[in-house]
């Protein structure tokens, strides 16, 4: 097995699967905790509400946590990034809490959701952002955003009238608020970067 895409019954995994197949990452949709054993990389997608994602993800929490501790590269996407935090204003359910901080609603001063293409402000050099510049656009669609306590996890932010966490990284854990699988060639580049990490 190469890249495990966690299929925990939320939303639409076709796009991410399709792109990983296209870049020859050998994706496999997995639903059971034991399927994570031996995965070279793990992608945690997520759409819909935080609470719903957490309720469905909880049975895989132990297996995901083990994979992470073993050093398997892991990539959270959209709500798959938000669930890495401790909690969200959206739902009472607790998050995975792997990153200290919370997820809060975008303020009323801006249109919610943020829907569309935005650029990044790069905060640190990380492997998954290799080849990505501040002039490149990525497709965002979200109503809540992550606020890490330790800002050193921030790999990139985006400007939506306020600073929004766009990418975080810590060791082998990566996550992006935008959708790389829907962000044209530059999005594919990010996924290729991630896949390359899993082969190291």
């Amino acid at each position, binding site marked *: 097995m190469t890249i495990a895409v966690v299929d925990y019954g939320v939303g*639409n995994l076709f796009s991410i699967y399709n792109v990983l197949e296209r870049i020859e990452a050998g994706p496999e949709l997995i639903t059971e905790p034991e399927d994570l054993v031996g995965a070279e990389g793990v992608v945690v997608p997520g759409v819909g509400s935080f609470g719903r994602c957490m309720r469905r993800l909880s049975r895989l929490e132990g297996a995901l946590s083990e994979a992470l501790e073993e050093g398997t590269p892991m990539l959270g996407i959209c709500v798959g990034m938000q669930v890495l935090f401790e909690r969200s204003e959206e739902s009472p359910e607790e998050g995975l809490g792997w990153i200290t901080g919370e997820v809060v609603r975008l303020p009323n001063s801006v249109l919610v959701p943020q829907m*569309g293409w935005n650029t990044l402000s790069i905060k640190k050099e990380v492997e998954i952002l290799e080849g990505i510049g501040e002039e490149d656009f990525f497709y965002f669609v979200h109503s809540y955003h992550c606020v890490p306590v330790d800002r050193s996890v921030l790999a990139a932010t985006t400007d939506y009238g306020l600073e929004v966490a766009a990418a975080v990284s810590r060791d082998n854990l990566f996550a992006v608020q935008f959708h790389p699988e829907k962000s044209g060639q530059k999005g594919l580049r990010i996924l290729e970067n991630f896949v390359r990490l899993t082969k190291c």
Partner: protein
Amino acid sequence: MLARRIIPCLDCDLGVPQGRVVKGIEFKQIRYAGVPWELASRYYEEGADEIVFLDITASHERRETMFNVIRTTAKNVFVPLAVGGGIKSVDDVRGVFKAGADKVTVNTTALKRPEIITEIAEEYGSQACVVAIDAKRRDSPGEDRISVPTPKGESWFECSFYGGREFTGIDAIAWAMKAEELGAGEILLTSMDRDGTYDGFDLPLTDGVCKRVRIPVIASGGCGNAEHIFEVFQKTGASAALAASIFHYNEWGVDEVKRYLAERGIHVRI
């Protein structure tokens, strides 16, 4: 800063095996434009920010053809794909998502059964639920209508359904506000008076909706050139502009439109 989006729209007739893209004028006088996935790939290469497919046949037996169109497109096109026409239930939504769509647009069904908006939003998130409104300008708004100043005097806008074939009596601007409340993530607002005319977007209608909702609005209907898109972005709060004919018949490339806008200070993805 978030870029304004340019969205080519493909009206699909699925009565032939691969489907075909057609375009009408004021919802009539249909003209053939090309094969759906080929046009979609071209627009993607040119820098389209999103692609919308509308099934104008919308009959049950043609659903398989639409799935094929989406599946083929999604293999090469890595921007969001929205699909509409004939969506009647969350099961239908599941079908188009499984084929590779990222958003659905609902129109007739939502007017007849508004709860479907909430059902889609709960299952797939608000961002996946676009409410499409086909609006027709009407004179002399009464007390119960949302009145908008237009060059033709104070007007209100009426929602149509069944692809413009029937009218509902429902106030389009009030319906947009209601749709937001029910969980819609975006409004695709088409002016029936302008659709296919090349006369430019209906600015009073677009402005009237943008000022009353806090979700993104896609302006649609009437785009005849890049200047029209510039105008709708400059004069209204529209987040995106949708166009069909100017792209289908090679009058403008998506890239040309974007360069035109960028030169005039509109923030777009290039």
